[in-house]
C-alpha cells in the first residue's frame, strides 16, 4: 500500500507539470497580453516602441519556454500574477473564494450519495418491477436536465412560488446552500443512480449470492455485508469521476444563485476578460480534479482487502 501510494504520487508529478504547461499555453491563445490589456484601458493609441519596452520589462519578449519557467517559479512561490481588473494578486483572491465552492460541492456530493446509493440498490433489487421502472425514468429525466434549467426551476418553485428559501443567497449560509446543492445533486444523482444500479446488479449475479441464499443467509445480510462491500470500490471510483462535471457545474450554479465561490469568480472574470484569473481557475480546478481521483484510487486500493492485506499491488 505504501509503495503503491508512493508510485501514484510520483506519477502525479508529470501530470501536474503538464497541467501548468497547458494552463500557461492557453494564455497564448488569448491574443492579448498584460501589456495590451493595460494600455488599452487608457484609451490612447500607444506607439509600438512603448509596447515593446513594456514587454521587455515584463519579460514578455523572451522565448516561450523561458517565460513558462519564470511563470512556474513564481507559481511555486505562490504568485500567479495580478488581476487585470482589480489589480489585486490572483492567488489570494482565488483561495479566499475556494472554501465556499468546496462547501457547495461537498454538500452536493453528500446529498448525491445519500439519495442515489439507497435508491440505486432498491432499483437493482427490484429489477424490472415498478420501483425500478420509476427510478430509471427519473434517472433518465434528471440526466436530460441542463443544470442551469434545474437551478432556475428550483428557484422558481421553492423560492418564488413557495417562498421557502431566499431568492438570492448572497451570504453563504445553510439556507442558501440548499437549492444550489440540490441543483448539483440532481444532475449527479441521475447518473450515479444508474451506475449504482448497474454495479449492484452485476454483483448480485455472482455465484456467491446464490450460494448464500441456498445456505439460508438472509438476503438483507448478503446485500449489506457482501454485495455492497464488494461494490464499494467501483462506487468510489465512479463518484470521483463525476467530480469533474461537479466542478464544472459549480460555475453555472454559483452564478445563478450568486453563491460567492470560485465558479462565480471565474464567470465574472470571463465577462471582464480577466485572463490571469481564468487561468488560475482552470489550473486549480484541474489540479483539484486530479487529486480527487488520486484519493479515490488510493481509497479503492485500501478498500480492497486482497490488495491491502496481500501486500503486493497489481
Amino acid at each position, binding site marked *: 500500500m505504501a509503495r503503491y501510494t508512493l508510485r501514484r504520487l510520483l506519477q502525479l508529478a508529470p501530470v501536474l507539470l*503538464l497541467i501548468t504547461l497547458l494552463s500557461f499555453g492557453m494564455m497564448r491563445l488569448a491574443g492579448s497580453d498584460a501589456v495590451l490589456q493595460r494600455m488599452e484601458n487608457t484609451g490612447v493609441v500607444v506607439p509600438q516602441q512603448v509596447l515593446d519596452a513594456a514587454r521587455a520589462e515584463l519579460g514578455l519578449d523572451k522565448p516561450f519556454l523561458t517565460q513558462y519557467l519564470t511563470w512556474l517559479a513564481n507559481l511555486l512561490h505562490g504568485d500567479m500574477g495580478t488581476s487585470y481588473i482589480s489589480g489585486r494578486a490572483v492567488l489570494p483572491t482565488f483561495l479566499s473564494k475556494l472554501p465556499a465552492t468546496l462547501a457547495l460541492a461537498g454538500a452536493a456530493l453528500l446529498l448525491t450519495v445519500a439519495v442515489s446509493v439507497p435508491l440505486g440498490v432498491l432499483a437493482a433489487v427490484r429489477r424490472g418491477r415498478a420501483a425500478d421502472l420509476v427510478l430509471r425514468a427519473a434517472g433518465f429525466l434528471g440526466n436530460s436536465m441542463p443544470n*442551469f*434549467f434545474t437551478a432556475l426551476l428550483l428557484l422558481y418553485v421553492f423560492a418564488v412560488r413557495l417562498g421557502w428559501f431566499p431568492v438570492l443567497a448572497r451570504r453563504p449560509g445553510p439556507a442558501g446552500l440548499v437549492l444550489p446543492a440540490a441543483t448539483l445533486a440532481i444532475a449527479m444523482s441521475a447518473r450515479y443512480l444508474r451506475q449504482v444500479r448497474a454495479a449492484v446488479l452485476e454483483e448480485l449475479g455472482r455465484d456467491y449470492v446464490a450460494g448464500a441464499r441456498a445456505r439460508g443467509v438472509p438476503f438483507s445480510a448478503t446485500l449489506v455485508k457482501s454485495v455492497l462491500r464488494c461494490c464499494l470500490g467501483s462506487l468510489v471510483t465512479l463518484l470521483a469521476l463525476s467530480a*469533474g*462535471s461537479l466542478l464544472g457545474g459549480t*460555475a453555472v450554479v454559483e452564478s445563478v444563485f450568486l453563491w460567492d465561490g470560485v465558479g462565480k469568480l471565474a464567470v465574472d472574470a470571463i465577462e471582464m476578460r480577466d485572463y490571469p484569473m481564468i487561468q488560475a481557475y482552470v489550473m486549480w480546478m484541474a489540479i483539484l480534479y486530479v487529486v480527487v481521483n488520486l484519493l479515490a484510487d488510493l481509497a479503492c486500493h485500501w478498500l480492497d482487502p486482497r490488495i491491502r492485506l496481500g501486500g503486493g499491488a497489481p
Partner: protein
Amino acid sequence: MKQNLRLAACLLPAAALLLAVLFARQLCPYDPNAQAFAALAAPSAAHPAGTDILGRDLLSRILVGLRTSVLATLALVAAAALAGTAAGVAAALLGGAADAVLMRVCELCLAFPGLVLALGLAALLGGGLPCAVLALGAVSWPKYARLARSRTLALLPTDAIAAARLAGDSACQLVVRHILPDVAGQVLVTAALDTGAMMMELAGLSFLGLGAMPPTAELGSMMSGGRSLLQTCPWVVLGPGAAIFAAVAAFNLLGEALRDALDPFVCQGEEHEA
C-alpha cells in the same frame, strides 16, 4: 420484432425534433425578430409561449433558438467524432512515436474536468457560438480517439486484415474497406449518447455569455437574458428551458436505443459507463 418496434418508438422523438429543426422557419407563427407585440405578454392563444421583453413572439424564438442549438450541437459532435476517429485510427496504424504522443495528449485533455477546460478555452478564444463549439470540440475529441485506436488495434491482428493485406490492399484501402466500417458502429453509438450532454454544455456556455450573441436566438442565451424576470414573467425562462430539456431527452433516448440495438452484450436498458 418487438426490439425493432421499441427502437422505432425511441427514434420518434428525435425524428420529430429533427423535422422541427429543419422546418423551424416555416413553423414559426411570427417573425422571430419582429418586435411587433406587447412586451412580456403572458402565454395566450395568439402567443402560446408569451412574448419576451422586446415584444417578440417567444414560440417563434424558441423554434429558431432550438434550430441554432441543435445544428451547432450536431456540428460539434460530428466534428469531434470525425477528428477523434481519424486521429485514433492514424495513431493505431502509425504506431511508435506518433501513437505515444497522441495518447499522451488525450490523457492530458482527459485530466482536465471537461466543462472547466471548455469554459477557459471559450473565454480565451473570445466567445461567440463558433468559439464555444470549438472549445467543446477540443475537449471532447480524445474520447473518440481512444475508442477508435483501441478498436483498430484489436482489429489489426485479425485474419481479415491479414487476408486483405495479402490481397494487396494499400493502407488507404484497408482503412476505408475494413477498419472504418468496424469502428463506425461504436463511434456512432458513443456520438449519439454524447449529443444530449453536448447540447446541455453548449447551452450552458451560452447561458454564461460565452455562446451565441444577443441578436441570434439561442436557447441558453435566451434563458440567461430572462433570468432577472423569473419572479414576474417566468415563461420567458421556463419556455426555452423546457425546449432544451425536450431536445436533450430526445437525443438521450435515441442514444440509449441505438446502444441497446447495436451492442449485443448489453441487456435491455442496462447502463454502461464509458
